[in-house]
Every structure is written in C-alpha cells, then in structure tokens.
C-alpha cells in the first residue's frame, strides 16, 4: 500500500486590505467574494477604512467602486482623502470610481439599488465594492426580510463576479440585527474611553464575525494618521503562541555588567530571561541598565527602549560613566528608542519594540520605565498579560530583557512587602529575575542596597549588598557585611 500524501489544507483566496496591521488580524486579509459589514459611530473612520481598501486594491492592480447613499458628498470626501498618503490621483477614475446610488434607491427602492450596483460592478470590472451608508438602505427596506433578501442577492452576485463587498454603516444598538446574520464578517470600530480620567480615548477595532477564517479575536487598537488607518494587533493575541525556537542550553549566562551582581545571580542572567529591576527614583536603576548594555557588541546587539530619561540625558549619563556605552552607540551595536510616557498606544509600542528587535536581531533589551507601558493603555489590567506575551516571545527569540520599575515608596519596598503598580498587577510573574534596589536610612544618612529577590532556577545569593553610584557606574560591595550592619545584623 502506497502511503498517500495528505492533501494540503484548502486556502481560500484573500483580499489584502492595504491597512497596516489588519491583514495580521485577519490571518491574511478578507476572503475574496465575501460581503462584510464595517460599523462604527460617526468619526470612527469607516469612510477612511473603505477608501483605504479601495486605493490599496487599485494600487495592487484591481478595480474598485465606491458607492454612496446618504453619506458625505464625494467632493468633500476626496478633499479629505487627498491629505492621506494612500490617496493616488492617478487611480481615479479608471481604477477607482465614485458614484451615488441614492437616486436609484429613492426611485426604485432596494430593487433599484441592487440593479444599479450589479450593473456598475460589471461595467467597471470592479472586484471591490464599498457601499457607504447602508443605513439608508435599511430605512428603505419595507421589512427585515426585504433587507435580508437584498443582502443575500448581493452576496450571491458578488461571489459570481469575484467582487468583495463592504457595507459601511453606523453602529447598531443591538449586535444581532438582520443584516448581521447574512454577511460573512463584521468589523466594529469604536472609541474606548479611559475609565479613570475619561479624557483620553483609544480607537479599537474588533472582528466580531469572520466566516471561514481564523482571526485574532478581541479588540485591537488602531490609529488614524497621515497614512490612514493603522491597526496594532493586540500583543497578547498576536503572541499567544510564541515563536518555537529550539532551546539553547549551551548558552552561557549573560552578564549584567556588574561583576558582584553576576556572582550573586550565580553567574549572570539566564539567556532569554526577563529581569525586573525595582527601586525608587534616583537609586541607579537606569545606571544598572547601562552596565547591562555595555556588554553589547556586533554579535550581541542591544536596544534601550526608554520612557524615563530622554536620549540627551541618557547620553550625558553614559558619558559621565566609564561604561563604554558611547562607543556601542557610535558603532550602532546599541540603539536608543525613546518615547514620552504620555498618550501612547500600548500595542503600538509593543509593535515598535518587536519590529526593532527582529530587524536588528537584538539580544539585549532594556525597557527603561515599565510604567511607560502601563500608562499607554486605558486598561491597566492588561499589563500583566501584555508583559507575559512579550516576555514569552522575547525569550523564544533569545532576547535577554531587563525592565526598570519605579518603586512607589521612596525608601523602597522591603523584601516580602506587597508590591504596587505594575508589579502589583502581576507583572513579576512573567519575570525570571527580580532585583531590588532600595534606600536604607542609618545615622541620618541614606545608603543604597541591592538584593536578588528572585532568580528562577538559580542558586542565587539572597544577601543584600551596599552599593554606590560612582564615576565608574555602580560599585557593589563584594560581601553583605556592611548591608547587614545597616539593617542591624552585624557591626557597622
């Protein structure tokens, strides 16, 4: 008996959307010949969505037809689209035409509208059709069954002429309305408002239905900028299954750049591990991170993804410390990506970070200021899942990561004390190592001490060490004697 090769799974033909990030959410694009509803409140970006798909399709050599009912007039719409980078005047009208079908709807109802749409799709040879203003058709439908029949006939015709159809409509109060049951997919665009401040809003996209295709479920952030809509797939969904890199037990520990700390960790950081460095402001967390990046080289590129200190201040700090980091920056084995911790979008930051890591083959990563990530989401509860997904992916890519985390108490959390902020939300679970830096007050002087709270799978030294920030960076005591004395455990 001859073994048979199993047939390759059926791969339906896809329509790339031309919207950055959306094809990732859709597992490659919409299914060709399908009919999809795009719904959202006024201002959500439905018109840009429809236009971007049309221009993207035209740029790929296809033909598209944009049909309006009672929607923004074409002249004003095109005036707005001209400001966006995807607008290509040469596509008009041969590859992309705009027509109004409202008169046909007014005169002959859904029958007239359907007839016009099919006639124009065939006449123009369009393989993408956008119908903007479905609500007008809904209002002209005598009964719900009329609307369902209209969509059904449109769907049948679309599949026959290989035309993918998008119906743009305002958000519905109820999710299940007649048209929703008929279409192949539903894209919902919405604005989520920050629960605490209720001042900032985050645009979110959700694929509520997608027949015949896997997709990234849940909501994904998107932005509307000079390039139109850009979607940032939710990191937790995107990296739900991390890249399956083979384990590399032969790799040596990665040095923190501070010899005593390496010794305390049992030789250094495990390759691909995640380390949290927790401490109050000014204690030397970023300095420790600069030590860590000082070990970068051509074969071990590094990235500082910073929120805390802007590049100029970091460079000044680097120059003041004899850590050799300036040379690493000059030879570009280390790069700094800085963003203010104001109104970022969490998944956009994750996307930017991961794109840089992949492009440069980064091996040592510093995220300076975990709070910067936390502040970039309207849902702080996400941060643990986000960091876990990121840590898993980075681990499998062989990236050793170090995050600095601001402690909420000036005198630092005591080992064993409850941790606040992102740590309190469980971020530390995704980290293999936890390094604690804190101030101790003794005889009217503030002393700095450092300790290892956690180093997974390592026989680490849990003793505290006093340290100083000097012109050579961090200088850590080789033994715990002085720290013991400060805490009353031995002679001062």
């Amino acid at each position: 008996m001859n073994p048979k090769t199993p047939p390759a799974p059926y791969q339906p033909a896809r329509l790339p959307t031309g919207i950055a990030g959306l094809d990732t959410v859709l597992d490659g694009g919409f299914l060709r010949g399908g009919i999809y509803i795009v719904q959202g409140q006024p201002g959500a970006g439905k018109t840009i969505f429809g236009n971007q798909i049309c221009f993207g399709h035209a740029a790929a050599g296809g033909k598209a037809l944009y049909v309006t009912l009672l929607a923004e007039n074409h002249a004003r719409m095109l005036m707005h689209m001209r400001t966006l980078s995807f607008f290509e005047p040469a596509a008009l009208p041969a590859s992309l035409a705009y027509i109004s079908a409202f008169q046909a709807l007014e005169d002959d109802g859904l029958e007239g509208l359907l007839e016009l749409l099919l006639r124009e799709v065939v006449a123009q040879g369009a393989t993408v059709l956008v119908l903007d203003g479905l609500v007008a058709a809904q209002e002209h439908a005598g009964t719900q069954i009329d609307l369902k029949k209209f969509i059904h006939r449109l769907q049948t015709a679309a599949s026959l002429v290989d035309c993918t159809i998008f119906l743009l409509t305002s958000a519905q109060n109820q999710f299940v309305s007649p048209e929703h049951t008929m279409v192949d997919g539903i894209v919902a665009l919405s604005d989520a408002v920050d629960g605490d401040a209720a001042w900032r809003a985050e645009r979110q996209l959700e694929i509520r239905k997608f027949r015949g295709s896997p997709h990234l479920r849940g909501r994904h952030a998107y932005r509307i900028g000079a390039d139109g809509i850009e979607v940032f797939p939710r990191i937790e969904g995107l990296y739900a299954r991390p890249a399956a890199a083979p384990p590399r037990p032969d790799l040596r520990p990665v040095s923190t750049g501070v010899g005593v700390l390496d010794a305390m960790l049992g030789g250094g950081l495990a390759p691909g591990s995640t380390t949290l460095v927790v401490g109050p402001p000014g204690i030397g967390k970023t300095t420790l991170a600069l030590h860590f990046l000082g070990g970068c080289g051509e074969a071990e590129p590094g990235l500082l993804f910073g929120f805390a200190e802007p590049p100029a201040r970091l460079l000044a700090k680097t120059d003041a410390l004899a850590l050799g980091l300036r040379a690493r920056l000059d030879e570009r084995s280390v790069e700094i990506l800085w963003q203010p911790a104001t109104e970022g979008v969490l998944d956009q930051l994750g996307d930017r970070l991961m794109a840089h890591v992949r492009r440069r083959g980064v091996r040592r990563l510093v995220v300076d200021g975990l709070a910067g990530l936390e502040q970039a989401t309207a849902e702080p509860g996400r941060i643990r899942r986000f960091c876990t997904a990121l840590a898993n992916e980075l681990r499998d890519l062989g990236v050793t990561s170090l995050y600095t985390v601001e402690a909420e108490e000036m005198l630092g959390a005591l080992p064993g004390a409850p941790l606040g902020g992102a740590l309190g939300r469980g971020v530390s679970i995704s980290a293999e190592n936890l390094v604690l830096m804190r101030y101790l007050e003794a005889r009217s002087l503030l002393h700095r001490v450092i300790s290892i709270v956690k180093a997974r799978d390592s026989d680490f030294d849990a003793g505290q060490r006093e340290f100083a920030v000097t012109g050579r960076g961090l200088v850590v005591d080789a033994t715990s004697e002085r720290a013991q004395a400060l805490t009353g455990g031995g002679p001062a």
Partner: protein
Amino acid sequence: MKSVLVVDDEFGIADLLADVLGEEGYRVATAASGRQALAQMRAERPDVVLLDFMMPGLNGAGVLKAMAAAPELAGIPVAMMSSLGESTIGGLCDGYAAFLLKPFRLGDVIETVARLANPAPKPT
C-alpha cells in the same frame, strides 16, 4: 429666459444648484444620470449643461460623446464638474467649454453659467 440642465447623481447637489440658478433668473431642470440627461436634452434643448463626471451608467465623458454624435445637441455649452482635477478629466474627454472643480463655490458656478449662457459676440 435662459435654461440650464444640471446633471449630478449625488443627492442634493443638483437640487441646490437648481435653487441657486433659479434665483439668478434661469429656468433649471435636473437629471441624476447621463441617460436621463440625454433624454431631457432631446426633449428640450437647454442653453447650458452643468455635467458631473462620475455617474452610474453613462458618465460625463459618455454624455459628451453622445452629444457630439447627435446633431440636435451639437453646440450646447457644457461645464464639466468633478472632484478630479481638470488635468485628469481633460485626458479622458474633450468637448466641454468650462470646468468646475468640486467642491466649488457658488459664485464660480454662477459666473461660469452666465459666461456660457451669454457668450461674448464674435468680433466682426
């Protein structure tokens, strides 16, 4: 009284122009498609046509071509209206007397219609 035919598929535009040009003293008719426009022109020859370019069925270029082929419609001045630039429209059709870029200002429309409806006498 001079007559104007306004041809545009988009809801509201033809009606708006009809109101404005009516106030200016023109007799105005409207059509929402190229075929409808040709039928109306044949029924009553207008003095000026304001013609949208992108329309379902027969677009502006198709209307101009049909007008050129019909002796009874020859010589009617046409102002083409489009949100595409004139350089684009000019490459797709000819035979129009004026061009109005959408979104237009009503003053420009009134001035264009007046110019086409009342051409300057040719020098002798």
